[in-house]
């Protein structure tokens, strides 16, 4: 286990190095000058030159990248070009919101996904299965920017049951909880559908396994056959899907954050890209990638508990 973690951390560092290079490189070759984004349309060439010099943008690529890496190694991820705020601070303010949103969406996704998937599998080929399969597929098919707008229209504006946007209140207050509902549904629907699908097919497969027949041959009750002899085995691939989806959710909050006026990392990222705020882009991409890897590491560790066959030396 320790070896696994150590190795993954090692791989993560390599990965981050790769990603940072990729991001840095792509921002470098992307058209659009950070200086003119700071200077605005009125800035004169002299203003811009001044800003560029100030930000070190006139140095050669490798010098800039080297400087970035050097600082990053020391835990300094630079300062936003726009706000001059430290990248760490800028992210620290937004990350809790993104995390909150991602976790809430995941809860929605897992609860709906598992329930729908199990119902489908256990009532295989019934109308319940058909309905839930159809809904699952529809869930994956809805563009979430559209879903979000529709939800706002119905539940916030017309019915006024839930607030339109924001995520400022703590989640344990009634207000904060209400704020989470619509965005969590918007973001979680796709994942719910994927989890439902995976649960269904995995259950269907496991139900046919020899050891389930063994359990029946022993005279085990049908309910126990399902909950003890099937579910845990069926969950193994589902856990992968959950892990991957959680990773994707963390990086996929962009549109939801935009629609629901949530101050999160996703929005920070697109704004930063639009403003050519390199340090912010770097910082947030690295964060999301790290989280992705960490989540998958956790999934791998969870595996060892669910599936005793898996051993990492």
């Amino acid at each position, binding site marked *: 286990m320790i070896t696994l973690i150590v190795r993954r951390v090692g791989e993560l560092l390599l990965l981050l190095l790769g990603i940072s290079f990729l991001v840095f490189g792509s921002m470098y070759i*992307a*058209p*659009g*000058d*950070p200086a*003119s*984004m*700071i*200077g*605005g*349309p*009125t*800035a*004169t*060439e*002299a*203003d*811009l030159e*001044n*800003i560029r*010099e*100030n*930000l070190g943008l006139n140095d050669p690529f490798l010098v800039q990248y080297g400087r970035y890496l050097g600082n990053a190694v020391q835990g300094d991820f630079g300062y936003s070009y*726009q*706000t*001059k*705020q430290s990248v760490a*601070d*800028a992210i620290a*303010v*937004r990350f809790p919101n993104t995390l909150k949103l991602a976790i809430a969406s995941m809860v929605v996704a897992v609860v709906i996904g598992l329930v729908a998937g199990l119902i489908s599998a256990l009532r295989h080929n019934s109308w319940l299965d058909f309905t839930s399969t159809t809904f699952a597929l529809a869930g994956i098919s809805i563009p979430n920017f559209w879903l979000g*707008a529709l939800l*706002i*229209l119905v539940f*916030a*504006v017309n019915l*006024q049951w839930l*607030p*339109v*946007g*924001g995520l*400022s209140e703590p989640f344990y207050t009634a*207000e904060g909880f209400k704020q989470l509902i619509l965005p969590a549904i918007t973001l979680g629907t796709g994942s719910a559908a994927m989890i439902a699908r995976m649960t269904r097919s995995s259950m269907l497969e496991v139900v046919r396994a020899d050891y389930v027949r063994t359990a029946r041959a022993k005279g085990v009750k049908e309910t126990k056959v399902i909950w003890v002899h099937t579910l845990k085995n069926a969950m193994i691939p589902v856990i992968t899907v959950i892990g991957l989806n959680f990773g994707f959710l963390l990086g996929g909050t962009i549109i939801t*954050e*935009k*629609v*629901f*006026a949530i*101050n*999160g990392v996703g*929005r*920070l990222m697109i*704004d930063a890209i*639009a*403003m*050519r705020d390199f340090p912010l882009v770097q910082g947030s991409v690295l964060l999301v990638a790290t989280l992705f890897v960490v989540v998958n590491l956790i999934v791998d560790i969870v595996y060892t508990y669910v599936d005793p066959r898996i051993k990492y030396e």
Partner: protein
Amino acid sequence: ACGGESSSAPSQTNEGGTTEAGGGEIEEFVYASTSDVAGLSPILTNDSVSANVQEHVYETLFERDTDTGELIPSLAESYENPDELTWIFKIREDVVFHDGTPLNAESVKYTFDKLRDPATAAPRASLLEPVDEITVEDEFTVKITTKYPYGPFLASLAHSNAAIVSPTADQAQDLMSNPVGSGPFKFVSYTPGDQVVLEAFEDYRDGAPDIKKLVFKVVPEISTAISMLQTGEVDFIDNLPSEQIARIESIQNVDIEKKDGTSVFYLAFNQSRPENQDENFRKAVAAAVDRDAFVGKLNGLGLRSDSVLGPMVFGYNESKNAAGQAYDPELAKQLVEENGYGDRTISLLTANRDNFVLMAEIAQAQLTEAGFNVKIETMEWATFLDTARAGQFDITFLSWANLTQDGSEMFYPNLHTDNIGSSNRAQYSNAEFDELVDASRTSVDQEERLNYLDQANGLLLEQNDVVVMYHGVVTGAMNSEYTNLILEPNGKWTLKDVTRK
């Protein structure tokens, strides 16, 4: 916030409900903007969102009269102009910064020097580019000399980026996240990406505003913001999109304020390309684009005039309202036919924000109608700025908010030869025009300036160098519980006088 009367707003604030009799303090007032402030220091920022907040925290030496547009003293009490190059300002003596520091001549010098210092890399350093030297004459008198006579100098000083900051605060802390000014509101907190919170400055020289807590909230989707306005989560939004005006009008608890503005949206040609230097070509384009129809699409949020300098801008002359090539599809078709303009593909560059796409789509359709072969290229803002600056387009749409409301401030950056390669994205170069603009900038005689500007304006229209699509209308929509919003033609607004109805 919701007073005693019933409100349709589902409790947007948890402290809502506490009220007191009388004129009514406003416990919390929320404004929503679609993007976050870049920062809270006037010296280091140059964007309208930041300016909105800064306007409430800081003050400038001069300001514009909201109705007449005239420059009137604000922090300055009076000024003298002993010669063309010298400006002597008398500063009000009763002003203190929020941190208790008195505002005096030293503060002004400090602020301006900092703004000018190349090491600061201030984005708007060019505001004070003509300044040669700043000297403190006495506690409340400051003398500024310019390198050359500079006509729009006072307008520059009214610019929100020329607001006076507290030198003690600037040395002690980062004004970007922790601003200290002398305005009606005092900084409380800033959550990047989310909101800036201000509170009433009790020691404000004109008396503390009614709004006790003022929140600038970021709501990136304007539709969401409107929904929030509808549900009462937000009290005020500005820059209403023309597409949604009908919807906002239909909302019961919201009042819309409109005012003619200084901004101008226009079609520009890339004049560095010989094809575009063809006068007939520009004429054909101008004749093909039906600006009236377009302005009709704006649902009253646009002002139709050919004049490059709009009615609210210094330098405007009514006679230029129809001085450009009028819409004449037949003429356009004829010109296209005669000159074979349809043979080349014209790239229509546009940024993918605001009304630019709308203009581009309509213009493209109309130009196509006239026989041109136009391809729209939309770009995100950053790329657009670079691409336009480098002159990689045939036609584009540009806009100018003109915060200073001065014609020179429109012509010089946008169309003067000096600024090709930077803000002169049309790559326009015309010696005669340059001369007129220079004259308007260096003269301090306002009558004379008016004349120069009008001539320059005429020059542009005559040759269809600029095809004005519309002049902006400043808008705001506020919860109808409140009143006394001050909207300025340049898009700025002030909430310090807002009261409960």
